[in-house]
């Protein structure tokens, strides 16, 4: 059995007919020609290097290449391509920025990869309505740069400069979720191309009311559907006012002190904008990589939004809470530059962690639990990490009860891989037992299908499958993800 397959088998059971690196299925020349007629000859590629690029995201799953990569420009082109795929029963995989973490774009059954990065760069902002409609080629940072002088921004920040429609597909979240929610709360309308090529407007074409109770909530059906129900070609998103902000950090003698502080801060109804936890290993990595000298202890990074007066009242409460938990005094970032430097260090944590063991690969876990259970699960995780001697940095969006263990390991050491796989599966199961979820932000993708069954139960999975069959009877939309039909 090839090495790649063994890795696959550790992560999930894949039939042996599916391989890591594969010869392209010979799509009939007629199909290729039809694609070329729609998008133009230079927008259709069967080159191996292009297909490899489109078969791999930022997860550890080995590359699974599509048979062809097509780059449409408009929704009409996407629809025409879908019609051909529907007719010939070809799998379709929508591709945004390839920054997913769960193998969402792996073409494990081959098929047609629709690279949406060449789509028309639509940005239609309705500033007084606080919403914007964007196309799939628009990334999060590009949108915020466009809006920067309007006083508005789109606050969901998963770290990577992901495509916004990709963020819709994975129901992304990030450091600001504690104040602004996740994608689930911030999508007003979607334009989706379904498996048969029909174009659906989930809340009605061109409509963007702030709220509605008209019919089934189709918009949220597609949020988090990871490309298994349709191809998102437009999204209407909520915008918020750019806040005045201040940031501070503080250190605690123990994880429990840090996490319990967070619970209390939220119970005092402080509208904290960002509250991020770093364990002592993460702080160590951060210091080394970003040239800082924080004390090597669990830390909280806090960001306050509001006018000076509003922030002052928030800070008073926070200071009282944390000093009752043995923390150091709040250290403030006063200028824009200091503020950006502080948060960059936090955002660079993945690279900082990798730098601890150059050449290693990083497994990232993603569980979320009710906040009251956070201390329990973090303590247990720490025990396991130390017992299994795993090199790991833990960082968390503690305001949402969501945290990530960044585990550096040698992917060719099968024993290490297996240990880590056990650890992360047990962690996810523990999270579910505590009333939480196996994935707070990254999605189910390839690796967590069995965990999903455990989480939503038989009836839950059965209902999901019914919906899938209704919208995609031939199982063409990103097959093999979320659940096996």
């Amino acid at each position, binding site marked *: 059995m090839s090495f790649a397959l063994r890795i696959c088998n550790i992560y999930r059971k894949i039939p042996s007919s599916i391989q890591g690196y594969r010869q392209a299925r010979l799509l009939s020349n007629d199909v290729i020609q039809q694609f070329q007629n729609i998008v133009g000859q230079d927008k259709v590629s069967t080159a191996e290097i292009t297909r490899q690029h489109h078969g791999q995201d930022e997860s550890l799953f080995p590359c699974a290449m599509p048979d062809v990569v097509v780059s449409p420009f408009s929704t009409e082109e996407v629809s025409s391509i879908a019609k051909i795929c529907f007719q010939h029963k070809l799998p379709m995989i929508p591709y945004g920025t390839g920054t997913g973490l769960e193998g969402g774009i792996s073409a494990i059954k081959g098929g047609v990869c629709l690279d949406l990065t060449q789509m028309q760069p639509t940005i239609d902002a309705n500033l007084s309505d606080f919403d914007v409609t964007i196309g799939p080629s628009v990334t999060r940072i590009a949108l915020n740069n*466009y809006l920067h*002088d309007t006083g508005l921004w789109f606050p969901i920040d998963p770290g990577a400069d992901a495509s916004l429609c990709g963020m819709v597909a994975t129901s992304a979240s990030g450091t600001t979720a504690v104040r602004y929610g996740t994608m689930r709360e911030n999508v007003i309308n979607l334009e989706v191309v379904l498996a048969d090529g029909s174009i659906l407007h989930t809340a009605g074409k061109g409509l963007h009311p702030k709220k509605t109770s008209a019919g089934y909530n189709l918009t949220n059906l597609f949020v988090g559907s990871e490309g298994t129900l349709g191809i998102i070609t437009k999204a209407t998103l909520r915008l918020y*006012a750019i806040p005045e902000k201040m940031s501070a950090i503080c250190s605690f003698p123990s994880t429990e002190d840090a996490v319990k502080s967070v619970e209390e801060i939220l119970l005092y109804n402080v509208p904290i904008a960002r509250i991020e936890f770093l364990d002592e290993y993460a702080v160590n990595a951060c210091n080394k990589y970003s040239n800082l000298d924080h004390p090597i202890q669990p830390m909280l990074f806090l960001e306050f939004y509001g006018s000076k007066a509003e922030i002052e009242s928030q800070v008073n409460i926070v200071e009282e809470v944390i000093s009752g938990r043995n923390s150091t005094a709040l250290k403030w970032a006063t200028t*824009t530059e200091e503020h950006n430097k502080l948060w960059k260090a936090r955002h660079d944590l993945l690279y900082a962690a990798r730098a601890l063991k150059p050449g290693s690969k990083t497994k990232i876990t993603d569980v979320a639990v009710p906040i009251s259970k956070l201390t329990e699960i973090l303590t247990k995780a720490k025990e396991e990490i130390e017992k299994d001697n795993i090199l790991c940095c833990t960082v968390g969006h503690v305001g949402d009860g969501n945290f990530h263990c960044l585990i550096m390991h040698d992917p060719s050491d099968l024993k290490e891989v297996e240990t880590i796989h056990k650890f992360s599966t047990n962690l996810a199961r523990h999270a579910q037992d505590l009333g939480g979820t196996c994935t707070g932000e990254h999605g189910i993708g390839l690796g967590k299908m069995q965990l999903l069954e455990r989480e939503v139960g038989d009836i839950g999975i059965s209902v999901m499958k019914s919906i899938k069959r209704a919208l995609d009877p031939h199982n063409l939309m990103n097959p093999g993800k979320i659940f096996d039909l």
Partner: protein
Amino acid sequence: MALRVLVGCKRVIDYAVKVRVKPDKTGVVTDGVKHSINPFDEIAIEEAVRLKEKKIASEVVAISCGPKQCQETLRTALAMGADRAIHVEIPEPQSNTLEPLGVAKIFSKLAKEEDVNLIIVGKQAIDDDCNQTGQLTAALLDWPQGTFASEITVEGEHMKVIREIDGGLETIKVKMPAVISADLRLNEPRYATLPNIMKAKKKKIDVKTPADLGIDISPRTEILSVEDPPVRQAGSKVEDVSELVGKLKSHGFI
């Protein structure tokens, strides 16, 4: 001495836009294209506002020269903290041929009228990359200049300027009144908040014309044509070294 600061704000095509050349080759497409404040001018405004927050400057006046839409650029400057704005209105197509010398003449005239003692401009505009206005303004006013500033510190009647130069950083001292041109690392500009944008709508924008100031802005250069760079040709693969050498020879490279 409380400084009175003048800041130049040019309205340019937004840096993220994919610029297209007009089919008649007279310029680039600007209709319906997103415009914003020149990024280096944003840095200049930010620095001026910080001086005001430190109580070193007493007033910040933003200026923009061009068609009516320049008022949007000025609103951004006002939302960031400028006190007043002056729009020197130059309609299209005349505004398309406005050159740094014309702008420098306008700035020097206004500097005297507004009795300022510090002018901050961006080091260059991202559309024409001229990097001349600051220097020309200083020359016309016979004021010292600190260009490519990455840090400025007021020390009484002088200003210490750290300049970014090819070899590294150069520190100079200029006596005010002076002209400063802002480089990238001078600061990271704030984002104007919504309340400030709303308040800026009520701040005053004075409109003048070059004629009001008695300035001739006719260009001294003429744009002959604007063209795309040549399309990149596909390369070709060679099988081995001898074929490579053969091709280099046949193309006359060796």
